[in-house]
């Protein structure tokens, strides 16, 4: 297997509505930023790997076909990836595998969502006769799982509130974010409207427009770039069925298996010690303590202690900061959200994460999950090959 590295990272400004660009303009902007970052022109790209969440969101079916021109890939190979909300992570891994396998030497990978032109609630709620039509949406699906986590772990009721504040404070260091809430308080989150008990409005992710792109190259080409290559030390994907008897929805097997695989590839046996930071898909606040356990940063039932102790907070000098960029709670262009996690992990180890940089970060985890928490994608990136 060839070594593969991230040599360019490009993001757009995340907003509730990017009225100044079409979908094509949005993906072009991220891709151009990634190429500029890598010091390359469009001709340097051999293939494009693209992903987004369900086509039903914007109602544009197979949008990759129409986006080929905007991504400079007419006449070049293009591949579409689709794994629901985890797609940003999966797309990056598919792109990396095309380089690791030696199929291409340098590829562009792009993901996006334009939620302002979309109706996700509708797209996710098509009626099925074997289930009542309750219009509860994604929050309605995940809230009972969070409630079960709270029961099992005995976590303090305000653990989710703490995550919501922590990620928004992190996020206020990142000018790309949709939500900018530098003054947010625990009380403000607590008093925000309950949406799907126990999830409050300010414990939920926003709906954003945005795109993220990366250039991934083999060892020879990576060393030619203007910036230090970010080496992909491990990459793993797992999935599990949403409905099977005995499924542990709080601590899903597929997530644990995916983490074990990516850690084994990267030579990690103690993620809390050996990783410097992590960008983890947390669309609802309670998913931080849940994923701390699922990803092996804490024992089962103990994840909330890291959160409450400030271990995951940059502002509190925590030893394992999570979501320094602000995470999905600050910007959520769904299809891109996973790739933003992967890209932000890469920015950290490259040392150019600006005001949300973890000082001296060398190795970081990028994580994404999707669907009914049944799709997982993770990578570990490092300055060291």
């Amino acid at each position, binding site marked *: 297997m060839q070594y593969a590295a991230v040599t360019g990272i490009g993001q757009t400004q995340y907003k509730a509505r990017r009225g100044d660009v079409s979908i094509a303009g949005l993906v072009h902007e991220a891709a151009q930023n990634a190429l500029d970052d890598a010091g390359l022109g469009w001709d340097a790209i051999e293939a494009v790997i693209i992903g987004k969440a369900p086509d039903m969101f914007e109602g544009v079916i197979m949008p990759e076909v129409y986006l080929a021109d905007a991504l400079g890939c007419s006449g070049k190979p293009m591949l579409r990836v689709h794994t629901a909300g985890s797609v940003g992570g999966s797309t990056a891994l598919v792109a990396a595998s095309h380089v690791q396998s030696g199929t291409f030497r340098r590829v562009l990978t792009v993901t996006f969502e334009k939620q302002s032109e979309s109706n996700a609630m509708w797209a996710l709620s098509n009626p099925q006769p074997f289930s*009542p039509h*309750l*219009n*509860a*949406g994604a929050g*309605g699906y995940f809230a009972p799982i969070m409630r*079960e986590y709270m029961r099992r772990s005995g976590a303090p009721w305000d653990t989710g509130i703490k995550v919501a504040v922590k990620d928004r404070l992190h996020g206020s260091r990142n000018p790309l974010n949709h939500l900018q809430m530098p003054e947010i308080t625990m009380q403000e989150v607590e008093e925000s409207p309950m*949406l799907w008990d126990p999830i409050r409005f300010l414990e939920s992710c926003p709906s954003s427009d945005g795109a993220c792109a990366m250039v991934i190259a083999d060892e020879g080409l990576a060393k030619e770039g203007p910036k230090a290559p970010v080496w992909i030390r491990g990459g793993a994907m797992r999935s599990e069925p949403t409905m*099977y008897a*005995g499924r542990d929805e709080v601590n899903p097997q597929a997530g644990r298996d995916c983490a074990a695989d990516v850690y084994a590839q990267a030579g990690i046996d103690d993620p809390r010690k050996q990783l410097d930071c992590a960008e983890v898909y947390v669309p609802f606040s309670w998913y931080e303590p849940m994923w701390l356990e699922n990803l092996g940063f804490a024992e089962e039932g103990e994840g909330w202690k890291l959160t409450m102790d400030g271990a995951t907070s940059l502002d509190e000098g925590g030893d394992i900061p999570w979501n320094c960029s602000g995470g999905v709670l600050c910007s959520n262009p769904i299809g891109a959200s996973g790739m933003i996690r992967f890209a932000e992990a890469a920015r950290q180890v490259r040392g150019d994460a600006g005001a949300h940089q973890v000082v001296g970060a060398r190795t970081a985890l990028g994580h994404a999950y999707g669907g009914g928490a049944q799709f997982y994608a993770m990578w570990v990136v490092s300055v060291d090959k």
Partner: protein
Amino acid sequence: MSEETTSSEDDITAIETPVYLTYNFTAGEATTRFLHQVRKGKVMGQRCPGCGNVYAPARGSCAACGLPTSEEVELGNKATVQSFTIVWIPIPNNPIQPPYIVANLVPDGANISFIHLMSECDNDSVHIGQRVEAVWKPEEEWDYAMDNIRYFRPLDEPDVPIEMIGKVPLSGWEGKA
């Protein structure tokens, strides 16, 4: 884009153009059997020949074992709350007025939960392990749909202990260990 053409708040930059897609739902063998029974007021499960777990509404296979679930099992009208949420968010065109309870319920005799509405209850006292029963629509309104059950309402029965949720037999639960 030049400064002159940048949209101001007064400009119309987007309009909603709803598109409708009607389609026939092809139920497949297992769901067809399930829907025919629910049309007659019965909730049927299907047992996995591998692990013995009973699925409802069954989709024809056990995803854990990868085996077809052909044996039909009748389920009780009673169920247990595995978890739940109170939905407060107002959704346009939603006929159900918030706040309402959406619960993950395991019917007696089954080993997996489905999602349904809870009503005739005090929202603040709904809890994990609570016993509930199905309230059906009048028989003349029954169709090939889970909506034949209007909602579930609380029962005056002892709670099911956590470790027993998902394992209550068809014979029910009266506080038996």
